[in-house]
């Protein structure tokens, strides 16, 4: 936190550290553009994503400001994909004007937090179309 003496000086860019429980080590400017995005972890042939808040201009491998969820894209033995969101912190960062990347928007749409993202509908109808195509091919042959 900046000291009180500097609070009125809006022009100075202030470097800050996040202090929430899941905060990362990433330093950031208070008024810079933030982004909520996927951060790929895991290893070869085993992707795993953390959902993180970062400065938008920074590349994906830099230290993050805060981790706000996880996304495991590989289905478990019950055929379920596990996703977790820290909705409280996500709301906080959205309130501070954070941008949200498309994959995260899709997940948030599916979870019922946001309206369904248009891309998800596109995926759905394309999948249905290919299914229908397959069926017609099978019927004709």
């Amino acid at each position, binding site marked *: 936190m900046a000291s009180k003496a500097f609070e009125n000086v809006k022009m100075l860019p202030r470097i800050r550290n996040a202090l929430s*429980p*899941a905060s990362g080590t990433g330093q950031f400017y208070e008024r810079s553009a933030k982004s909520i995005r996927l951060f790929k972890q895991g290893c070869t042939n085993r992707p795993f994503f953390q959902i993180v808040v970062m400065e938008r201009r920074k590349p994906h491998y830099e230290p993050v400001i805060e981790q706000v*969820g996880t996304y495991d894209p590989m*289905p478990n033995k*019950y*055929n*379920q*994909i*596990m*996703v*977790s*969101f*820290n*909705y*409280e*912190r996500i709301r906080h960062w959205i309130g501070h004007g954070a941008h949200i990347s498309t994959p995260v928007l899709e*997940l948030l749409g*599916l*979870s*019922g937090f946001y309206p*369904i993202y248009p891309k*998800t*509908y596109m*995926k*759905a*109808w394309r*999948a*249905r179309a290919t*299914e229908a195509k397959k069926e017609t091919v099978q019927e004709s042959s």
Partner: protein
Amino acid sequence: MEKYLKRITTLARYSTRSNFLSYEKDPAPHFFNTEIQKLLSSITTLDVQKIFRKRTVNDNHVSYKFLTDKQLEDEVRNRFKDAEKALQMPPVLKVMNDQPKTISNDVALTSFSKHSYVFTDVTFGLKNRDRSIVVREPNGELKEASYDIKKRAWQIYFPLNDRSFREPKIFEEENFKRLLEEGQYQFLLDRACLQYEPDEQKYHDITSRIYLHIDEHLKFESLRSTRHFGPMAFFFAWHKMIDNLLLDMIRNDYLKNAVELICLFYKLNNHNEKVENILTICAKSDNLESRIQNIINDLLKKNQIVKQIDKTDEELRNDEEYLEFIQSYIDKYCLKKPQLELTLNTYREWHNELKNIQLKYTVG
């Protein structure tokens, strides 16, 4: 393959709705009633020797200290508080009714994915039961997660120590049976408490099966002065099958507990019997404070060498009241009348003899 089939058959056997006794009404309001809680904790009996016995755990250490008399007294009192804490009973609740609600159904999303998505709220500081956990099915339906999924999600994101992620092997049929026959009741019940929530069907199945096994083999002593004794007594009183436990209590000279058990039976089954008088006598003879004082005096070697008497006059008088009360139960509600009456008569004879001896002692 054979192993797999075996496992499936055991699972199937579990999943069929319980063949064991279950609670039709909600037992929770009865169980949490203060009077019934008092009865249950009194029936459990507090035996410090048993609670702080050596166990097969890593931490069995003994430490030695120099203490003043005051410090020693405080230490003993604190240990008794610990013992009371260790006897806190796992609650008896109704089996939950798990019917996940549908939140929305978006047909346009049909076949958007081949898998279903489970979304868990991992906000800090929420209780697990308050977390929203929802599932988006491949057909576009958004609904609350079923209990199985919820429990798995809790264990993934907020793991409970020692609760295993998969079904523990000791609850597989053959292992479970073996442990029952070995009489490892406390071990099984402790594990069940850890693995399952008290409102799960499986918890109810396992516990009721263990209780019935104990009842059949009259092994009540193995649970006495553990946290499971109260729920067990509650189970028997609820299902009107206290006779074996009563028999055991009379045989082992827990007459006060027998009376309390009968009171519990009356209360749970709405029998209009007068229990206030006898309960006040029970409450008066409940002498935890004097027991603590006795132990302290023993440790400080302040106890004078007293006459070795089994029971004081007052205790003998109380016993007579208790016997009368138990007799009235046997006459009205008992299902194993001849057995219980025989035991009671034996007790009476012993009691009279004790009285005579004591009379002689005091006169002589």
